[in-house]
């Protein structure tokens, strides 16, 4: 039984975290909102920053780059989620099997998670995807094929691959801990009853993993919505890889139009929240403890 005393104490203890995050959210958010209604060109100090009404919102929304960028964002997030979860489950099941050197394999598998996004983008772009000197090009030529120009001909796929490589360890780890907690006897009983592998997977393993998958989806989505370094380093937003975040970057830093970029920021927050609500609808039940 929580007493009145502990309730107020609880509130008090939550206060620092809540107040700090409230500040972290409200101050920039308010400033973004303020800027989004103004004409603000940092490189044009001669121009009086004035009230812009909804001009920036209308302009950002009606720009020919807007919808494609939303689509690209969703494709990247969705693609990475799909790849990391499917491969993550398979890897987790594999790593759960008896083998020699299990710990060492696990170390190899989680290593990409420790690599900075900038570094991983640089390494992939130069040492693997370079159409002349990259390792893939060498490999393709070895088999007599014409090397693929990854970052223009398969730009979106390449970025999804790089990002998936970075996040696969995270998904695998969480799914692995979940699988390890699976009741082995239940599986054995099913096996004895003659249930085939795929049925055992669908009816026993998958439901058990539901919660872990939810967590992976939620956490990864938060990070994936704002990926930036991977695109900045590899394609610079060319060849259909401009996400909403990257579009805002172009507006704020390349075009130096802070008002327009801020309006874009507000749209990005709205998109993030739509995605979040959508996620909660689908998977939210799993979060109830």
């Amino acid at each position, binding site marked *: 039984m929580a007493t009145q005393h502990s309730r107020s104490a609880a509130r008090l203890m939550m206060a620092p975290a809540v107040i700090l995050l409230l500040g972290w959210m409200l101050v920039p958010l308010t*400033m973004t909102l303020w800027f989004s209604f103004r004409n603000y060109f940092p490189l044009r100090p001669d121009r009086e920053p004035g009230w812009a009404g909804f001009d920036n919102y209308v302009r950002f929304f009606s720009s020919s780059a807007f919808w494609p960028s939303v689509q690209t964002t969703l494709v990247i997030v969705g693609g990475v989620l799909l790849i990391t979860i499917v491969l993550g489950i398979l890897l987790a099941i594999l790593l759960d099997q008896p083998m020699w050197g299990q710990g060492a394999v696990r170390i190899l598998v989680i290593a990409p998670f*420790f*690599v900075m996004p900038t570094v991983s983008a640089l390494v992939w772009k130069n*040492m693997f995807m370079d159409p002349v000197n990259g390792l893939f090009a060498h490999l393709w030529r070895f088999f007599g094929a014409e090397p693929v120009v990854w970052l223009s001909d398969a730009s979106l796929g390449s970025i999804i691959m790089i990002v998936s490589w970075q996040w696969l360890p995270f998904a695998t780890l969480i799914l692995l801990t979940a699988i390890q907690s699976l009741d082995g006897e239940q599986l054995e009983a099913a096996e004895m009853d003659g249930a085939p592998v795929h049925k055992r997977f669908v009816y026993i393993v998958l439901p058990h993993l539901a919660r872990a998958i939810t967590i992976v989806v939620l956490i990864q989505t938060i990070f994936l919505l704002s990926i930036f370094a991977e695109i900045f*380093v590899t394609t610079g937003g060319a060849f259909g890889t401009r996400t909403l975040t990257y579009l805002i970057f172009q507006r704020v830093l390349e075009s130096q139009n802070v008002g327009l970029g801020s309006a874009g920021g507000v749209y990005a927050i709205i998109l993030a929240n739509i995605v979040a609500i959508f996620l909660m609808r689908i998977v939210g039940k799993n979060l109830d403890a």
Partner: protein
Amino acid sequence: MARSVTTQRKAIYTIVAWGIGLLIFFPILWTILTSFKTEAVAIADPPVFLFFDWTLENYAVVQERSNYMRFLWNSVLLAGLSTLFGIIIAVPAAWSMAFVPSRRTKDILLWMLSTKMLPAVGVLYPIYLIFIKLGLLDSRAGLIIVLMLINLPIIVWMLYTYFREIPGEILEAARMDGASLRSEIIYVLTPMAIPGIASTLLLNFILAWNEAFWTLNLTAVNAAPLTAFIASYSSPEGLFFAKLSAASTMAIAPILILGWFSQKQLVRGLTFGAVK
């Protein structure tokens, strides 16, 4: 009744798992190998794997050009302190959410996570202006605060899920014995949550270490961590794969080593309450 595993099966699993593990690890391995090659060998066709004249020249060049230790020290300080402060602030919040839940607990938790969705570049100008006003540009203190705030939602959430797994009766008992709230948290709850706290610490240390937007844009010299170090090696004039590899290896080696040594702790705690 334990199922007996044939040696043959175990061998197959071992081969497949090692194959996949090495495949996933290969880009990192290749980077490390390339860092010991000369520039000419690095782009040789066909590629050379192990049998080349190993050289430390690239590391010497990188070390001569950049003060690596200062970048490294900044990375350690920023990632370490931001995580530490984050945990100090998050423990009480997570405690109250876990043990004195109200109707709004879940909403607050989700709201906290949603603060992470604000695209960083959209608020660069506001934050930069605030930092100028407060004199925090290129200061470690400023960056520690920012990194802590960025990761706070994840920290709170992780701790909350660990705390929930601790049976409330134990705390009740401590309270019966007359323990104050503070000593209840410090002496009863925290020790029980040590594995969880350890993995929270590790995960957020990694996230803070790899954060590359704010650490690059809010620093110049004094507070610049390894993310800024690597930004001086990408795309110079000419393709210098070997030097880029050396710099990359230097940027990721510390966290890679830390990660490997602590992977048991990381794995044990990295559940986000997914395991009941």
